[in-house]
C-alpha cells in the first residue's frame, strides 16, 4: 500500500489553496453567469429559492415551512443570501453550487499536494476536471449539485481511508458521510444501495470473515438514523411518517410521478440490467480516464478493487434508480463520476511524468466524451443549458408567472396563493411578505370556509399546462394538478366568487380582490 507521506509544512490554508479556489470559482462562476445572462433558469432553483422567500417572509420563522419533501441542507445554505440585494438573490442556488464545486476542487488540490504533485500539474488537473461538461452541468444548472459532488468525494475519501487504514474511524466516516448525504441529495438511497454489494471489495477481509453483518450494520446505521429522524419529522409536521416519499411533490421519489413523460423511464423504467449496462457505457464514454485508473491500479490488489468500485458503483446506482423509476437521465447520476475520478487519482501513487501525460490526455478525452453523452438524448433542461452555454439567448418560459409576481409586488395586499403553483411568481415578487402560503395556519383556516375572508386570492387556470421542467428535465406534475385554491374552489378561476372582484387576469393567472358584501363581482362583469 502506498500511504500518503504527510509533509509537516503542508497546510490547507495557504496561498496556493486560495489560488486554486479562486481559479475554480472563476471557471464555474463565469460559466454560471454566462448561462444566467443567456436566460438559462432552472425551475428547481426557482422552486428552492421561492421556499426560502416563503420561509423568511412568514410571520414566524419555522423550518418546517420549507416542507420536508426534499433534502434540507442545500436550502439552509441559501438562507444567508436572503439578506443580499434583490438583484443577486435569485442567483443564490447557482452561487452556492459554484462555491461548493470550487471547494471540492480546492480540497482535491490539497490532496494532490499531499501526493507531491507540482502546482502546475495540479492546476492542469483541476482545470481539466472543472471544464468537463458533466461537472459544469452539475455545478451550474442551479440544482446545487456542487454540494452533492463534495459529499460523493467525501464518501470516496472514506472508502480510500478504509482501504488504507481499515480502522474504526474509516467505518464511522463512511457511515456519517452516508447519513449526511441523505440531507443533501435525494439520490443517496440509490448510491447507498449500490455501494453495499461493493463493500467486500474495500472492507478488510478479516472483518468480513468474522462478521459481515456487523460491517454492514456499522456503516448503515447512521443512514437509518437519518431516515428514521426524517420520517419522525414528517410524522410531527406533515401528514404521516412516509409523507416525504408518498407525496406527489416529493423529490425523494425522483421522476417516478412523471414516468410517462420521461423518455429514459419510458424505455427502461422498472428494468435494472439494461439501464445499468447503458450507464456503464455512458460512464466510460464520459470518463474514459476511469479505464486509465484501473490500468494503473492493476498491480495493487487493494487499489484495483477500490478503482473497480469507482467504475461499477454509479452504473449500479443508475440501474437501481431506473428500476425504481427515480432517474430521468443517466447523466443525473453519472455526473458524480467526477468526484469519483478525483478520489481515484488520489488513491493511486504519484504518477511519473510520462504517465501523467497519459492521465492528462485521458482527462482531456473525458471532456470530449462528456459532451457526447450530454448531447445524447438530452432532456429539455439539458437542452436549454447546452443552448445557453453555446451563447443562444433563451426565451423566458415563465413570463406569465413573472408578470404576476411583478403585479403582486406592485399591489401589496394580503393574498391567498398556493406556493406550489406560484413559486416562480413569488421569486419575481422578490419576497413572500403578506402572502398567505399553503403551510400557514391562515391559509388552512381560510380554505375551511366556503366564503373565504381574505383581501385577495390568486388562482391558477386549472386547464393550464406549460410543460414546465424540473431539474430532471421533466414536466412538473404540480403544474398538471389544479392548485390548492382551485381544488377548494373549483369554479373560482372561471366564475369568480361572491364578494370578490377580478383585479388581475393575464396569461394563466387571475387575482380576485374582496369588495363590500353586497357587491357580486364576476369574471363577466370585469
Amino acid at each position, binding site marked *: 500500500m502506498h500511504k500518503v507521506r504527510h509533509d509537516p509544512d503542508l497546510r490547507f490554508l495557504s496561498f496556493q489553496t486560495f489560488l486554486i479556489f479562486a481559479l475554480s470559482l472563476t471557471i464555474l462562476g463565469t460559466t454560471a453567469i454566462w448561462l444566467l445572462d443567456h436566460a438559462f433558469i432552472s425551475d428547481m432553483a426557482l422552486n428552492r429559492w421561492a421556499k426560502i422567500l416563503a420561509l423568511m417572509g412568514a410571520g414566524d420563522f419555522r423550518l418546517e415551512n420549507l416542507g420536508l419533501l426534499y433534502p434540507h441542507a442545500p436550502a439552509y445554505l441559501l438562507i444567508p443570501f436572503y439578506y443580499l440585494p434583490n438583484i443577486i438573490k435569485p442567483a443564490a442556488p447557482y452561487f452556492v453550487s459554484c462555491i461548493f464545486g470550487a471547494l471540492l476542487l480546492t480540497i482535491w488540490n490539497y490532496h494532490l499536494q499531499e501526493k507531491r504533485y507540482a502546482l502546475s500539474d495540479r492546476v492542469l488537473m483541476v482545470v481539466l476536471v472543472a471544464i468537463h461538461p458533466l461537472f459544469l452541468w452539475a455545478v451550474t444548472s442551479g440544482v446545487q449539485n456542487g454540494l452533492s459532488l463534495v459529499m460523493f468525494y467525501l464518501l470516496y475519501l472514506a472508502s480510500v481511508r478504509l482501504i488504507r487504514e481499515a480502522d474504526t474511524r474509516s467505518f*464511522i466516516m463512511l457511515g456519517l458521510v452516508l447519513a449526511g448525504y441523505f440531507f443533501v441529495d435525494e439520490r443517496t438511497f440509490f448510491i447507498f444501495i449500490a455501494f453495499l454489494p461493493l463493500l467486500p471489495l474495500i472492507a478488510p477481509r478479516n472483518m468480513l470473515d468474522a462478521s459481515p453483518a456487523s460491517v454492514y450494520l456499522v456503516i448503515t446505521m447512521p443512514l437509518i438514523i437519518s431516515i428514521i429522524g426524517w420520517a419522525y419529522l414528517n410524522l410531527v409536521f406533515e401528514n404521516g411518517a412516509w409523507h416525504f416519499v408518498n407525496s406527489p411533490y416529493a423529490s425523494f421519489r425522483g421522476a417516478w410521478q412523471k414516468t410517462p413523460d420521461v423518455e429514459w423511464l419510458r424505455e427502461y423504467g422498472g428494468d435494472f440490467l439494461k439501464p445499468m449496462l447503458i450507464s456503464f457505457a455512458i460512464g466510460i464514454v464520459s470518463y474514459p480516464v476511469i479505464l486509465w485508473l484501473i490500468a494503473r491500479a492493476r498491480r495493487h490488489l487493494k487499489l484495483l478493487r477500490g478503482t473497480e468500485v469507482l467504475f461499477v458503483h454509479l452504473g449500479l446506482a443508475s440501474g437501481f434508480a431506473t428500476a425504481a423509476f427515480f432517474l430521468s437521465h443517466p447523466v443525473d447520476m453519472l455526473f458524480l463520476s467526477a468526484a469519483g475520478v478525483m478520489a481515484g487519482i488520489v488513491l493511486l501513487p504519484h504518477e511519473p511524468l510520462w504517465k501523467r501525460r497519459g492521465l492528462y490526455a485521458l482527462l482531456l478525452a473525458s471532456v470530449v466524451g462528456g459532451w457526447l453523452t450530454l448531447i445524447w438524448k438530452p432532456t429539455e433542461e439539458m437542452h436549454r443549458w447546452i443552448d445557453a452555454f453555446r451563447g443562444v439567448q433563451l426565451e423566458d418560459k415563465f413570463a406569465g408567472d413573472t408578470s404576476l409576481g411583478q403585479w403582486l409586488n406592485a399591489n401589496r395586499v394580503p393574498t391567498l396563493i398556493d406556493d406550489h403553483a406560484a413559486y416562480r411568481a413569488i421569486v419575481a415578487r422578490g419576497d413572500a411578505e403578506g402572502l398567505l402560503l399553503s403551510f400557514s395556519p391562515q391559509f388552512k383556516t381560510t380554505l375551511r370556509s366556503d366564503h373565504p375572508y381574505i383581501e385577495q386570492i390568486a388562482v391558477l387556470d386549472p386547464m393550464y399546462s406549460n410543460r414546465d421542467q424540473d431539474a430532471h428535465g421533466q414536466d412538473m406534475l404540480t403544474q398538471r394538478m389544479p392548485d390548492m385554491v382551485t381544488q377548494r374552489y373549483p369554479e373560482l378561476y372561471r366564475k369568480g366568487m361572491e364578494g370578490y372582484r377580478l383585479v388581475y387576469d393575464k396569461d394563466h393567472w387571475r387575482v380576485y380582490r374582496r369588495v363590500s358584501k353586497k357587491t357580486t363581482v364576476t369574471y363577466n362583469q370585469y
Partner: protein
Amino acid sequence: MSNADTGGVSAPKLRVGDLLVSKGLVTNEQVKTALELQAKWGSRIGDIMLAKGWVKAFDFYKALSDHFHKPFVNLMQLPPDVSLLNPEDSEAYNAMLFIPWRREGGKVVMATANPTDEMLEFARRRFGENVDYVVTSKFDLLWQLQNNHDGYFSDNAVNILANRTPEHSARQVFTEKQLIVITVGVAVFLMSLTAWPLNTLIAFNSLIALFLLLNFGLRAILAWVGSDRHIDVKVTDHQVAMLNDRDLPIYTVLVPMYQEEKVLPKLAYAIRSLDYPLSKLDVKLVLEEDDEATIAAAKEQGLESIFEIIRVPHSLPKTKPKACNYALNFARGKYVTIYDAEDRPEPDQLKKAVVAFSQVSEETVCIQARLNYFNHNENWLTRVFTLEYSLWFDFYLPALEALNIPIPLGGTSNHFKMEALRKVGAWDPFNVTEDADLGVRFTQLGMHVGVVNSTTYEEANNHYGNWIRQRSRWLKGYMQTYLVHMRSPIKLYRSLGPAGFWGFQFFIGGTVMSTLIAPFLFGMFFIWLLTGSIFFEPLFPPLVLYISLFNLLIGNGYLVYLSMVGAFKRNHFVLMPYALTVPVYWIMMSLAAYKGLWQLIHNPFYWEKTIHGITRHEDHRDHTQPVSSSN
C-alpha cells in the same frame, strides 16, 4: 552481633540457596531454577523462592537468621517495645522491612526481615551508634506495624487529604457558598415561575435543550477523536519483549476485597499469571478486619509470600478508598495499581504500564488501562454494560487524554507513580468514586493521566438490583466529584484551561445532569406520542423545538450508534444489535441517579457494595497453574 558492631551487614560465607538445601527446605533443582531466575530478574534468591512458594516464610527467615548468625525472633511471642516505635517512621519501617524491637545489653535491637546496611544506618540515625539486629519474618513485621500503628494509619487513611488540602476533600458535601448559590437559584426560579410561569418554563426548557446539545456535541467529538487508531499510548509487543526484567521496579498491586472469599483462587491465579517477575510483585490483599471469612480464606489458600494481607481496622467512612489509603502505608513499589478481586488483567499489563511511563512526559503520573467484561454475553444487562464500557474506555477516555480534559479514572487497573500518588494525598476516602475524583485532581494539579492499550477483564454486573446499587454509587460519586471541584469554578478554570473546564462540566456534570433530566424528557415524549397532547407545545418555541428534536433524533440516535461502534471496535460483534436497546439502559441509569442523589443528601459517604462473583460465566482455567511464560 559482630557484624553490626563493625558497622555493617557483612556477607556470610555460605550462600542462602546452599543453606536452604542443607536444611532440607528446598531441593537442588529449585535452587538451580532460582539462580536462573535470579540472573533473569535481578532479584535476591530468597525473594524468588518465597515468591514461588517453594519455602515457607517462617522457615526461610529462620534460615536467614542462621545465614547472618543472628537470632530469629517470633514477634507474636516476643512483641516489640512499643515505646521505641515511631509512627512517623512507619514508611521507612515498611520500606526497609524492620522495626525497632527492644533495648538489650545497652543496645537498641532492630527486628528485620531484610538485613541491610541502609537499615542499620537509619537505625543509627534514630538511636545512636549502639544498634544491633535480629531476624524476623516479614509477615510478623507487617502485623506488628499494623497492630501498633493502626490508629495512626487509620487516621492517615481517613484524614490526610482532608487535612492537607481540605478544598479537595468530599468530607464536606456542600460548602456554604454552594448552599447559598443553590438556595438563591431555587428561590429565583420559583419566584420567576410565579411571576412569569410560561416564560420561565420556556427558559428552563431552552437551557436543558442547549445543555443536552452541547453534551452530545462533546461526546461526538470524543468518539471521533477516540476513533483514531493512534490515540492512546501504544505499547507494542516488541517493546514489551525488549524490556529487561532486571530493570523492572517493584510493583505494588492493591486488591481491596470485602466478603469475596470465593473469588480468591481466581484472583491468585490472575496475579500469578502476570508477566512480571513474581519477586518484584508486592501484592496487598486489602481486607476489612471484620471480614473474617475472607481473611480466613486468604490464610487457608497458603498463598506465596508476594501476597500480603492488610487488615484494615474499622473506622468511618468504611469505603474502598479509605482501605486503599490504609494499604498504601505498606506499599513498597515504585508503581502501584489496583485490581478488583474478580479482575483478569492481560498478563503483560504491568510491563506495558512500565513501558508507557517511560514513553510519556514526566508529568504523567497515572496510566489507565482499558476495562471490559469477560461475561459480556451473559444476559441483557451484561451486554449493554459491556457496550457502555467499550465506548467509555476505548473511545472516550483516550480522547479525554488527547484533549487534555480531566479523565475520570476507572475503578481498577489505573497504574500510578507511587511518589505522585502519595504527594497528592492518594484517594479521597469520602468520595465514593474516588478514582474519578483522583483523575480530576491530578489534572488540576498539573499532572497528566494517560491511557494504555491493555485491557483488564472484569465481571459485568448481571443482576439488576446489584447494578442499580453500583450505578447509584458511581453517580453519587460523580455528584461528589463535581461539587468538590466546583467549589471554586474560577480556580478550576484557571487550572484546567477552557477545554479541561468545559470538558469537566459536560463529561462529569453532564453525565449526572443528563441522567437526572432524562425521565422528564422521555416522559413528555411518550405522553405526547401516546395521547397526542398539545399540553407541552407552549414550552417549545421553534428554536427550542428544533434543538430538542435534534437531541431526540440525532443526539440519541448517534449515542446508540456510538454504543454499536464501541462493540464493533472490541470485536463484540454479537453485541451490536443490543445497542438499539441502550435507551432502556439510560432509564435504569436515571433510576440509579435519583437513588444516588437521595443518598448524597442523606448518607453521602455510604458505600453501596457491589457483589462480585455472582456471574454464571464458566471459567475453565486451572487456577492452580500460572499461564505466563516468564513466571
